[in-house]
């Protein structure tokens, strides 16, 4: 007896020669068989070819137990079988199953790998076309909104602005401050070796305002808000909320995509400003502690070292990066199919693509603005 008070499965082999009788008893169920499976298989193997099977003493038989016997019998009833009427349907079901098998999956061939590669190339093309279509649709919707001013989704824009802008301020400040401190500390070590302490202002000012601030904040926002946008739109696809909107005659682009895009485009320059300011503050504190550079000197030297054009470039980058992150996030969100796998794949694709796009566009910016705002050339 086991813990639940059920009799364990047993095999008794009686008699000799032509008259061998195999009596099975106990519970032939998955629960009781699985711990004894090796033993039971071994016992079954000892049963001679010609014998009488007696299943009369079996107290319970489930599909696992019956399949075990069925497989041992070579998928058919043995010629001499004493089967109680109650167990008849169990074996009838197995007999009905016949030789049913899973549909065959085509084997993997060398050409499949090439085809896979080709599909990936086409997929990139599809993404570009789909993305262009999304941008086009938004432009058409903007034209519509210019004619019907009452339809602007101001409430959603404001809510999104709060979510992606205001609520992102603490984390941006924390990361910005720490990066500022680290940059300042590492640069100070090098600069002191050359006695060029005062140039810390130039390095921090230019580096953070023009380059590091916008990119750093973009990466943060892509991870924080971009993924949230994709997941939100994706889940709305899964729960058919977007279809519900469409049937009410409300454009998903106007009500879902546009507010996110506008909000992030407006919020990102401000976040960039905020993040850069805190990073410079961190650098200033570190410089003060390590190089004894006073706050007064630092703040006076900063406007001289960094022409104001750099601030404009930083803010412009912020706006463009925000626009791209929101568009990419919404594009992948609208591609989600109603299953969990698709949701995770598209959220991953959204974050990876938006960070990649941000860095690519940053390179374009670097080339396009190479003659603007750089002193000492």
């Amino acid at each position, binding site marked *: 007896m086991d813990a639940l008070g059920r009799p364990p499965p047993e095999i008794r082999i009686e008699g000799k020669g032509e008259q061998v009788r195999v009596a099975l008893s106990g519970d032939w169920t998955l*629960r009781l068989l699985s711990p004894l499976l090796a033993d039971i298989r071994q016992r079954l193997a000892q049963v001679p070819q010609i014998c009488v099977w007696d299943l009369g003493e079996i107290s319970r038989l489930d599909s696992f137990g019956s*399949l*075990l016997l069925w497989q041992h019998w070579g998928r058919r009833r043995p010629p001499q079988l004493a089967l109680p009427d109650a167990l008849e349907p169990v074996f009838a079901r197995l007999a009905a199953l016949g030789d049913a*098998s899973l549909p065959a999956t085509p084997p993997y061939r060398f050409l499949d790998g090439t085809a896979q590669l080709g599909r990936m190339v086409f997929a990139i093309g599809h993404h570009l076309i789909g993305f262009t279509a999304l941008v086009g649709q938004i432009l058409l919707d903007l034209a519509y909104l210019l004619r019907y001013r009452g339809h602007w989704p101001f409430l959603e824009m404001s809510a999104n602005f709060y979510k992606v802008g205001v609520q992102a301020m603490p984390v941006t400040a924390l990361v910005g401050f720490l990066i500022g401190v680290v940059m300042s500390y590492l640069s100070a070590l090098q600069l002191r070796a050359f006695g060029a302490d005062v140039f810390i202002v130039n390095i921090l000012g230019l580096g953070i305002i023009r380059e590091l601030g916008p990119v750093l904040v973009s990466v943060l926002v892509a991870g924080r808000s971009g993924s949230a946008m994709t997941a939100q739109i994706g889940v709305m696809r899964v729960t058919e909320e977007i279809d519900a909107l469409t049937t009410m005659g409300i454009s998903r682009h106007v009500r879902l995509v546009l507010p996110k895009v506008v909000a992030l485009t407006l919020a990102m320059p401000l976040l960039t400003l905020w993040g850069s300011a805190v990073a410079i503050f961190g650098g200033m504190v570190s410089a003060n502690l390590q190089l004894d550079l006073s706050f007064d000197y630092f703040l006076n030297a900063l406007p001289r070292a960094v022409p104001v054009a750099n601030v404009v470039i930083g803010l412009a980058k912020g706006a463009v990066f925000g626009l791209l992150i929101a568009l990419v996030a919404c594009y992948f969100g609208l591609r989600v199919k109603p299953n969990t796998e698709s949701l995770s794949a598209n959220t991953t694709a959204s974050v990876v693509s938006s960070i990649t796009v941000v860095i690519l566009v940053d390179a374009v910016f670097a080339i396009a603005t190479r003659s603007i705002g750089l002193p000492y050339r």
Partner: protein
Amino acid sequence: MSTFPVELKGLSTRFGQTWVHRQIDLAVPAGEVVALVGGSGSGKTTLLRQMVGLLRPTEGTVHLFGEPLFAGSRRDQLERRRRFGMLFQQGALFSALDVYSNVAFPLREFGVTDEAMLRDLVLLKLAMVELEPEIALRMPAELSGGMVKRVALARALALEPELLLLDEPTAGLDPDRSAGFVDLICALHKALGLTVILVTHDLDTLAALATRVAVLSEGRILAFGPLDEIMNVQDPFIERFFHSERSQAALARGRAER
């Protein structure tokens, strides 16, 4: 064994300030098909979720197979959970796995590693719920609503449960399919000797399946017994629920199906 597969003792549930259940006592005898009925918001699904331990009651206990649901070590609780299967309203198939892997999942978790055995078991379960082997490699997203329910039933039956819980088994199926599904559950109940507890709004299903009916109203069990007895109970809720013209027609249809 004389113990009840499911026994609720003095069970009360509170959500915020409202009491959903007050002092519910219910013992489901083995081998019966018990239908839980009640108006919307009467806590039928809540009760079902408490039976399988997805929710804990505010007061009182749930006993499964004679033992408290949360008694014993983690191992004991796992053993207990493997003795029942649940069919969720939307099927709750794992959308990342195909049909075959969905049905094989509980078996693999149990420790069946022999692939040939696994394949035959899954095909047998699919045959039991009258599905062709051809759909085994499809993803849940590619199935119709009725097929999803069948696959979910096959998964619930994978570990040969003694107790099967069904949450709205026929909701969202057309009349033809829902009649087919009811027949299927009837046949499985007879073949496997299961105890079945179902929550339903559908009187056709109720009349065709249930050997006993538990009526939930105002947080308590109003009546528990065979359908004919329930019909004779004098109560305004039962009057409205079972004796309206529409209900009578549905019950007659369900009975004819038996």
